[in-house]
């Protein structure tokens, strides 16, 4: 089966147990303002300019038949309305700065790719992690991918916001060894404000997964001033503990590298000043979610 991805990362060591390969599926229904994979948000064809790699030779501008490319303040800008995705600029770019983001891939090829890592995944207790974007946004593809991975004896993790109809989650249940589920904000209004959607379905799906006995690890991205408040963290902790005891929660430090990607997309990050939490503060925040109740 064919699906759409935007990246594959080998030796992923922060996406579940052991050494893993993480596959990033393209497209997400949420619009988190802090999203650190902005290129994975929208489904469909897209391209971007890796500005660091660009040598400003103008080859792409000369190549483009649609006149969709211009030099703006020393950087290549893409007029996505004009672009016909003929890839002429991508092929001619000497430094490969111009790149297609979307990749159409076959499930069986992905299985092959992950199987190549077998020595490392087997010896470290790792496997594959399906991430995004939001993997449940391509439900058939994700289901098929998980099935084929399991058939190849590859341990599976899924990283999801749980924002999907319950039936989708239910369908993948038998094929997932470990769910890494995001709970970002407990307050519904806040959730709407920062992610664009309500968290009702997310929280109810969480309860559903608990009831179904799915192996769960809750993860909270620490966004300074937004999710990383004591109130929010305590709230999530008590919500999780209230649903069922013993479910672990992990905090993910803020990733300040995301800003660069917005620039590649010709966009700006919502707050360029944010930085990762220093070790001390991080362990303080970690303590909050580790405390029972």
């Amino acid at each position, binding site marked *: 089966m064919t699906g759409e991805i935007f990246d594959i990362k080998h030796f992923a060591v922060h996406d579940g147990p052991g050494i893993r390969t993480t596959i990033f599926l393209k497209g997400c229904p949420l619009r988190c303002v802090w999203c650190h994979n902005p290129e994975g948000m929208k489904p469909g064809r897209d391209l971007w300019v890796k500005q660091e790699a660009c*040598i400003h030779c103008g080859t792409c501008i000369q190549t483009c038949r649609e006149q969709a490319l211009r030099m703006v303040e020393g950087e290549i800008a893409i007029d996505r309305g004009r672009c016909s995705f003929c890839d002429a600029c991508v092929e001619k770019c000497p430094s490969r700065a111009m790149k297609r983001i979307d990749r159409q891939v076959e499930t069986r090829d992905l299985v092959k790719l992950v199987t190549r890592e077998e020595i*490392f995944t087997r010896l470290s*207790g790792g496997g594959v992690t399906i991430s995004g974007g939001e993997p449940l946004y391509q439900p058939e593809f994700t289901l098929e991918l998980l099935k084929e991975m399991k058939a190849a004896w590859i341990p599976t993790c899924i990283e999801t916001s749980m924002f999907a109809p319950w039936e989708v989650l239910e369908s993948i249940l038998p094929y997932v060894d470990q769910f890494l589920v995001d709970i970002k904000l407990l307050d519904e209004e806040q959730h709407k404000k920062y992610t664009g959607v309500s968290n009702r379905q997310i929280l109810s799906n969480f309860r559903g997964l608990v009831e179904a006995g799915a192996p769960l690890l809750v993860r909270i991205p620490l966004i300074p001033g937004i999710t990383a408040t004591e109130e929010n963290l305590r709230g999530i902790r008590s919500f999780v503990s209230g649903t069922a005891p013993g479910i672990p929660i992990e905090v993910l430090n803020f990733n300040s590298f995301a800003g660069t990607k917005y620039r590649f997309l010709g966009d700006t990050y919502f707050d360029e000043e944010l930085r990762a939490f220093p070790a001390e503060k991080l362990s303080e925040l970690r303590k909050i979610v580790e405390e029972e109740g």
Partner: protein
Amino acid sequence: MKELIEQIKQISVTERIQRLRRQTLEEPRYLTVEQARLITRAYREHEGESIPLKRAYALRASMEQLEIRIDEGELIVGNRSKESCGGVVFPEGGIKWLEREIDDLETRPQDRFLVRPEDRAYFFEELVPFWEGKTLEDNIGKALPEEIKACEVVGKLNQKDHAQGHICPNVKEWLAKGPAGLLAEAREKKGRADKEHQEYYFATELVLEGAVHFMLRYAELAKELAEKGPKTEQENYLAIAQVCTHLAERPAETFREAVQSMWFLIVLLQMESNASSFSPGRADQYLYPYFRRDLDEGRATLEELQELLDAVFIKFNQIVYMRNTDGAAFFAGFPIGFNIAVGGKRADGSDGVNELSHMFLHAEEHVQMRQPNLSARVHKGSPDSYLKHVSEVISLGTGMPQLFNDEAVVPALEKAGYSHEDALNYAIVGCVELSTHGNALGFSDAAMFNMVKALELTLNDGVCMQSGRQLGLRLGTLEDFGTFQELEDAYQKQMYYFMEQMEKGLLIIEEMHKKYMPSAMLSSVVDSCMEKGMDVTAGGAVYNKSGIQLIQVANVADSMAALKELIYDKKELTAGELLKQLRENYPDERIRQMVLTHAPKYGNDVDWVDELGEKWVERFKERLDTWTNYRGGNYTIGLYTVSAHVPMGLKVAATPDGRRSGEPLADGGLSAVYGRDRKGPTALLRSVSRIDSSNAANGTLLNMKFAPQLFEDADGVEKFCGIIRGFVELKINHVQFNVVNKQDLIAAKKNPENYRHLLVRVAGYTANYVDLAEKLQDEIIARTEYGGNA
């Protein structure tokens, strides 16, 4: 065992060790001519004698007369100069370079030494005139024909101004017999020897007598200090006196005696040869009986034994090797390669990890200095607890231990002609060079073959693109090669031409070593020399190899892949276009970017690219295997550069892999070109595994750099163990790790005073980062980092 391991890990470092460590780090480094005086006097006094005897008299004089010192608090004593870290002037090897460079020693970019005015005066007034024409260096200079010297830009000949090191002596036997036991043997053999061999045994007798005296002198000094020194140290001084007296008279019995004895041997060998790398080898194996006995008989506590190991670890940092400026650039940051290998298989194939293996690892945790060069042998059956401890020590960021893979090394050594049993008992000498234990002269750093330069010459009709000089064969330029095959054929011819010149040079150099650098002390601890009555330099060892380093696989694979893909297969560029870019050092950045990004690179798990690297190692080996070295053994290949990828890169013009003229070559030996491995460490390891490690019996080198963040997660160590296990299964010889953040390296470069103690793995050895020249610092920053959050 498990409880004992935990107990060992809990032992904390003593104040004594911390004090000794500080002292060693702070001691200024001076050039010293003291031994040169003694050697010169001995050569004068024994004017009429043969060179082997002159050498022996000179060494005995040094053992008997060099000023000695015992620092307050030292548990293990002995050095080859009164000052620790002295830069010993060693005239027998060669001092021409010092004539030119003595005034730059204090200010040169790399590995500086202070020079006292009176020593400088003595150097020019006495040493220079006396030694003119007598040194190894001078005689090699005379003996090497100009046409061979001209080819050194490709086949660089080493070992021209000092004796050969990189040897693992038979420490086990040395401990079991002691100098007195070996001396008795030499005397007995001399009595029965024919005239031809008598001289050998006489020389052995001289130096072993000297060794006995050397130990007794330390005993005397310790006794004196026991009377004069502080009361608190009296007991220790008396213990030193007793240990040294015993060692002069009989074999080692206690652990302390065994450790002291091992250290004395290293000092004496260093004193004889002033060479790089006399390696203790598998110390956790041969020291184990002494350790066990002390513990079982209640003679010492675990803590006391640990402190002795910590103490000897510090001693390894007190001998440095003063190289010329060129040499210091190639081997920057005082690598001297006192290599200790822990763990690994026993001779019967079972796992050899014991408590001492863990105590050596723990000593590294305690001491964290450049030396010894700690290596950990690993194999499929290495216990988890051992790999975990190894990983924990690696995570400290000293670059140690480096890892050697029995699954790859043992077959490589067997293929090179070592017996199965000896191969299983391998040790590492120097940085990453492989050797058997106590019975081999591997001449492991005989030459470095720059196959990237050979490629440059192939593309340009044998003409150096930097100087315009005709250096190689005239076989046409890139424009003349109609197919990739034609290009490859020309490359092979060009390569073989330079190999032939190199081989002629090697025979001459080894002959000169036999003539001018016979080494009686060393021969007494290398198996079969004593029996045959033959010096190691003459071929007395059981195994006689010569190691040639092939440099650098990654640049050749990437260059060949770019040529194949862009010129011949996809025709994105013409031969003329690219050749112009290479000759003129990439005036057009667009074309440089194309070769960088439009052709796949080694290190990304692309079979055909990796195989282009492997192919040239094979071709090189095929030719090399047809030759026999001067001592009757075979040549072996090493795939490592130490830090020579920086100076060797200086002499190579722009290359088709996108490297600009003069830029460093890839680091390590099997590493990808820095930053070009984009698919992560697992893909890199798979690429590396395609270069058949069994062809590289002289050792290989792979650098990997991990972010400290990897170890922050609770299960980070376990994930790292997964990488190690994978490395073992992929049958790669060697890997070593830097665990350091890019930001820290950048900050250390800016404010060195705040980062005095920051250690980094350069290439088979660890150095203080701030001691490195800027180019090397930048190169380490540029290496790909894995496991971070980005």
